[in-house]
């Protein structure tokens, strides 16, 4: 066994124990124990705030999203089922959903006049993927993303991390809408096939 897989095993163990703790805290929230929510917030809020901030792009909006999501988590903790995925997966999905709803509001405008966010968005290079590889849970998706064609990978990463819709992807990548949709669809199919091989 080489050093890399030892490191990955350690990351897996750490992640497993975090997920177990989060699951126990969700159970506490379901019993209406406020200290459980406080601890859950302490352990997960920075990650979820990062996710929200990246999609809605404004501190005050991301704060509102985060507040609403923790209230939702508190009120729906009893609905969490381990079979639906790890606690962090469940909470991340709640946050991303809320962000996408938020972007649908009529008043929404993408505050990116200077193009700073677009410039910081993931490129065709798999650079940000190296971050993913460090995490036990994410190593599989990181490897499979690297196996995609660059355009497919870029479209999927922009959609996931920046909350771009098909038409925003088309505008951002300066490609026809149909082309972008095809990249996303084929990319997702390949991801699934790749993940199922593991």
């Amino acid at each position, binding site marked *: 066994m080489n050093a890399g897989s030892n490191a990955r095993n350690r990351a897996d163990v750490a992640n497993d124990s975090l997920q177990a703790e989060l699951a126990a805290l969700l159970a506490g929230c379901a019993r*209406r124990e*406020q200290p459980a*929510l*406080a601890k859950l*917030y302490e352990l997960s*809020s*920075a*990650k979820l*705030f*990062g*996710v929200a*901030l*990246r999609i809605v792009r404004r*501190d*005050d909006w*991301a*704060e*509102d999203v*985060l*507040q609403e999501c*923790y*209230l939702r988590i*508190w009120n729906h903790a009893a609905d969490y089922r381990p*079979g*639906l*995925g790890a606690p*962090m*997966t*469940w909470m*991340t*999905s709640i946050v*991303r959903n809320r962000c*996408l709803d938020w972007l*649908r509001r009529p008043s929404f405008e993408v505050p990116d006049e200077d193009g700073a966010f677009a410039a910081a968005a993931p490129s065709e290079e798999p650079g*940000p*993927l190296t*971050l*993913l590889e460090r*995490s036990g*849970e*994410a190593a599989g*998706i*990181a490897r499979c993303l690297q196996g995609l064609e660059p355009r497919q990978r870029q479209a*999927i*990463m922009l*959609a*996931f*991390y920046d*909350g*771009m*819709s*098909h038409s925003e*992807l088309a505008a951002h990548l300066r490609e026809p809408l149909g082309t972008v949709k095809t990249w*996303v*669809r084929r990319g*997702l*199919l390949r*991801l*699934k096939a790749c*993940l199922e091989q593991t």
Partner: protein
Amino acid sequence: MNFRDKPELHERLAAEYALGTLRGRARQRFERWMREDAAIAQAVARWQARVAPMAEAVAPVTPPRRVWHAIEQRIGSRSNESGKSGFWDNLAFWRALGLTATGSAAALLAAGVLLAPRAPEPAPAPVVLRVPAEGMPNAYLAVLSDPKSQKPVLVVSAGVKSDQLWIKTLDPSIHVPDKSLELWALPTGQAPKSLGLVTASGKAALKLVAAADQSLGDIPALAVSLEPRGGSPTGAPTGPVLFSGPCIKYW
């Protein structure tokens, strides 16, 4: 369209729902299907489990304390139904505590105390408060500012062992005829506590119920609300919060 007969379609929509590219009305419609059809809900859950780990690559950003305060308030007010809610649950209020305690507190500790407003607005010139050359005594210190202009308007201080709370008005124009300005301590997760009224004179002292170490030790921030003449009739803030700022211990 009989959606259930098209497993390929529902697999594709589940994938696009989880990724986030399914939007607008199509997204809402799909959410209804998800609620009605357990197989679709499971397909979505599987896709979420596939893509959500991508979030691991997002750099964590610690949210400001006010987000937790607002959550705590909302949960607290739900568990005791009688609670006065609304005003103090409002994230906009906590946001109006424009200077977050953590970042600014460190900045206040220089020998000349530099007040750095939060980033988004074009920053006004930094305000340097003059401090005696021999250094400051051990004290609690708060600089309250107007969240709109980010201009500091009041400095509040108290020696750690003293029950005298000193208030220096930096901007005399804050006083409004026939109204009073009331100073509040904002303990974490509890209702604000009145510290007294801010008088119109440039410098004044209020008496704390106990030495500052007890009265202000757990108070992360102070705020000033606009109240009827003579102060809040209810013991809780009734008017808008005009100024606020972190309360720190300097020693």
